[in-house]
């Protein structure tokens, strides 16, 4: 018996992980390139706690309980407290955790790249996001025109901007209003609209219905729409951004509404993030964005599933 055949599972793990060597190397290079970009732009890299007492009460996001609180679903509340304390431009790459999210594009433990800029709006973040991805691609030695799953993505820019309303008119079988009335917004989005987005160039899908942006500012000239956008590349949703809501009273009312809706669906009630709400009174106008680092690694390595860009999936632990 050869020593290798003694431990078949160790052998197969060795083979599996060695196949991912290229994408894991790419991740490491991406981290470096992202840091370089934000340093050049005058951003400060920050770290905030992963174990937190109270996640933001958002209807469809479930936190994983831990002793002493919850694992963060995003670093948003603590990064905004830093903004309120006068840190004007900050970024972070960190692990986030969401219960029950597992699929070709989802891991319950994943990596977010999140950044905030004071005295900025969501349009400024669009430009910056575009510049960041272009800079990282360049550092990695990628061409301006890349392919993801056989679909062309021209990173050259300026990237396409489409409002949610326009996207439903263009690609949906129902209008935006009808889809919301019938409770089919998410289904239409996934089945009819998303496949069209992000090719032959990345797409910013902008101006979401106000009810779908618990932490975003509403448009000054149209309160039915929030200043929120999502970035798509090759049909994959990559990032979510807002002009941040800075009104503590309005934020408290929105959280109460989300908490109520969570209760109606039998979802866990989280303690209210009171210190965040207090800090919000001091937060300047700002915009921020959360980008799925693993998904960007998928796009850059042309990987079909998120499994291929991490060393271990939950099933392999």
């Amino acid at each position, binding site marked *: 018996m050869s020593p290798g055949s003694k431990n078949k599972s160790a052998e197969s793990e060795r083979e599996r992980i060695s196949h991912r060597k290229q994408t894991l190397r790419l991740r490491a290079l991406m981290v470096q390139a992202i840091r370089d970009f934000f340093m050049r732009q005058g951003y400060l890299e920050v770290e905030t706690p992963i174990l937190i007492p109270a996640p933001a009460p958002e209807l*469809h*996001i479930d936190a994983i309980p831990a002793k002493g609180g919850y694992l963060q679903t995003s670093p948003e509340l603590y990064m905004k407290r830093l903004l309120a304390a006068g840190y004007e431009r900050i970024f972070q790459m960190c692990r986030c955790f969401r219960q029950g*999210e597992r*699929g070709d*594009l989802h891991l319950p433990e994943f990596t977010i790249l999140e950044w905030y800029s004071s005295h900025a709006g969501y349009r400024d973040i669009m430009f910056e996001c575009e510049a960041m991805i272009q800079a990282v691609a360049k550092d990695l030695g990628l061409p301006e025109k890349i392919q993801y799953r056989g679909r062309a993505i021209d990173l050259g820019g300026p990237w396409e901007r489409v409002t949610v309303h326009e996207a439903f008119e263009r690609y949906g079988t129902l209008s935006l209003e009808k889809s919301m009335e019938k409770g089919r917004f*998410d289904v239409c989005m*996934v*089945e009819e609209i998303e496949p069209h987005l992000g090719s032959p160039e990345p797409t910013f899908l902008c101006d979401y219905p106000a009810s*779908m942006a618990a932490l975003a500012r509403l448009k000054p000239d149209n309160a039915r729409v929030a200043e929120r956008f999502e970035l798509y590349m090759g049909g994959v949703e990559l990032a979510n951004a807002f002009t941040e809501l800075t009104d503590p009273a309005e934020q408290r009312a929105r959280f109460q509404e989300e908490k109520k809706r969570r209760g109606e*669906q039998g979802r866990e009630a989280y303690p209210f993030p009171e210190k965040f709400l207090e800090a919000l009174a001091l937060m300047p106008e700002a915009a921020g964005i959360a980008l799925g680092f693993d998904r960007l690694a998928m796009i850059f390595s042309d990987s079909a599933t998120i499994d291929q860009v991490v060393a271990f999936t939950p099933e392999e632990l």
Partner: protein
Amino acid sequence: MQGPIKDLSRGNHMYNASDLRRGLKIEIDGDPYIIVDFQFSKPGKGQALYKCKLKNMINGVMFDQTYRSVETFKPANLEERKMQFLYAQDNEFCFMDMENYEQTFLSEEQVGDASHYLIDNLEVEILFFGERAIGITLPNFVDLTVTQADPWAKGDSVAGDTKPITLETGYNLRVPPFVNEGEKITVDTRTGEYVTRVKE
């Protein structure tokens, strides 16, 4: 009164959308379905969606459906029973339960290619949906007698050569030249291919 209590407990247990996965069997509109393809998706800040491709386990018809997290699903009441093949008549295949000697029938359609391997007294698993037989699982290997095989002239043989033969069930396949009429061979029922000659 064990039966009804068992059924009742089954009726109470439901799957949640988060239980959905490839291979899960659920009941929809009175028919059993198996999930043959499954995809989790969740648009940004939106609800979790569970895209399924489902196959009707009785007629094989497939359809796509997207479920939301609030939906629940009834497990399909499926059970495999060990049975013995008795005989085929008028396009029907008769099997006998080896515990209670009850007989049940499957149609030619339901048996499909499994008929290539059905010899008297062969032990198989019959799949029941409630009280209704809907499918058959064969043992992986079955021994069958060769009823027709042309002789092979020695010396003509080239490595990798095969010749056609007919088995007792009427199934035709290709085997190595040294297999003779009247001999028994083992066939892999998953591939339909020759495995070895059976030494009597």
